[in-house]
């Protein structure tokens, strides 16, 4: 684990938790208003590749957990150092009742499609996102379909099973 980075992070930000479940992984948990500054700090620290923005629905806690996965690019000598091996996972929680968060496009421009996807599948509104239009889905859903309270079986019964079979209808 990148020990100096952990110390630096804990010295710079208050209210931050840094854990290392594995050698090459670092999990940072922080408050939601500190996310942009932590991402900025990590980007200037060399972690310039945003791999993924994901979301977890913690329905019992009534919260969404946003997950940002960062890694560093390989240096010119093509040899892995500790820094290039480490994946950084930044987690933060937002309220499920009012799912709003700020966009991180000013820091990582490639977050645009990921945030669009989360807007579509979890119904999270990203403030400042230039175009939150549908990305993957074709239909309208009453609840965004990746939320835990979306009942897929009920939906399948309602929509797909209600369509009659042509051969049976003919008779």
């Amino acid at each position, binding site marked *: 684990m990148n020990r100096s980075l952990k110390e630096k992070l804990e010295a710079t930000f208050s209210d931050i938790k840094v854990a290392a479940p594995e050698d090459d992984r670092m999990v940072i948990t922080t408050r939601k208003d500190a996310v942009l500054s932590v991402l900025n700090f990590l980007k200037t620290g060399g972690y310039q590749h945003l791999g993924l923005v994901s979301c977890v629905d913690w329905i019992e806690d009534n919260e969404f957990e946003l997950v940002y996965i960062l890694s560093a690019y390989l240096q010119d000598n093509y040899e892995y150092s500790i820094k290039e091996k480490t994946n950084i996972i930044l987690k933060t929680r937002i309220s499920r009742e009012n799912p709003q968060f700020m966009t991180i496009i000013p820091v990582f421009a490639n977050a645009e499609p990921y945030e669009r996807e989360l807007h579509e599948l979890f119904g999270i509104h990203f403030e400042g996102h230039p175009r939150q239009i549908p990305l*993957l*889905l*074709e*239909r309208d*859903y009453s609840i965004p*379909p990746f939320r835990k309270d*979306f009942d*897929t*079986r009920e*939906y*399948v019964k309602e*929509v*797909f*099973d*209600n*369509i*009659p*079979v*042509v*051969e049976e*209808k*003919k008779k």
Partner: protein
Amino acid sequence: MDRNQIIKWLKAPAKMGHKYSLHAIYFCTGCGIIEVPPVITARWDAERFGVIPVATPRQANLFLITGYVSVKTLKAIIRTYEQMPSPKFTVGFGSCPINGGMYWDSYNTIKRLDKYIPIDGWIAGCMPRPEAIFVAVTHLWTLIDKDMADGYKRYRSNYHLYRANQEQLFGELEWPPLFPLEDQVEQIA
């Protein structure tokens, strides 16, 4: 040429022509398409059976639907199917087009493909081996011989039912009906 087939050739030359020149549209849905490259290349060589992949639906008469069909893909499948010239044959490949397969409770995958377009044959399995495509092709030959591969005729005669199912799923369709709808309803009434 097989001597036993000479009578068949003389009786219905067009049918025999369709049988041995199946041009499969290279349309990739789901995971089943991974079986198609070995089938059409040197390992299994589908050309022995007269099956060649072609680039556009205008040149094709065999439609292999390989794998799960999402709602968005179904739109493309219907449009591709309607563009193919008759006679055309459709084969559902894998268990997902049959009944949903492992996506039986998915929110975005259609469960039964034959509600939306007519299917002439199914290949069950997840995944079927490439040999299964040849079994399906030889079965399709038998069906063509017996005039049972009549999906395109069923689509024409029941078009209002298929179109109604498609509209029930998509809401409004962006393209006009392939066949006039009013005549059909009158004919049946």
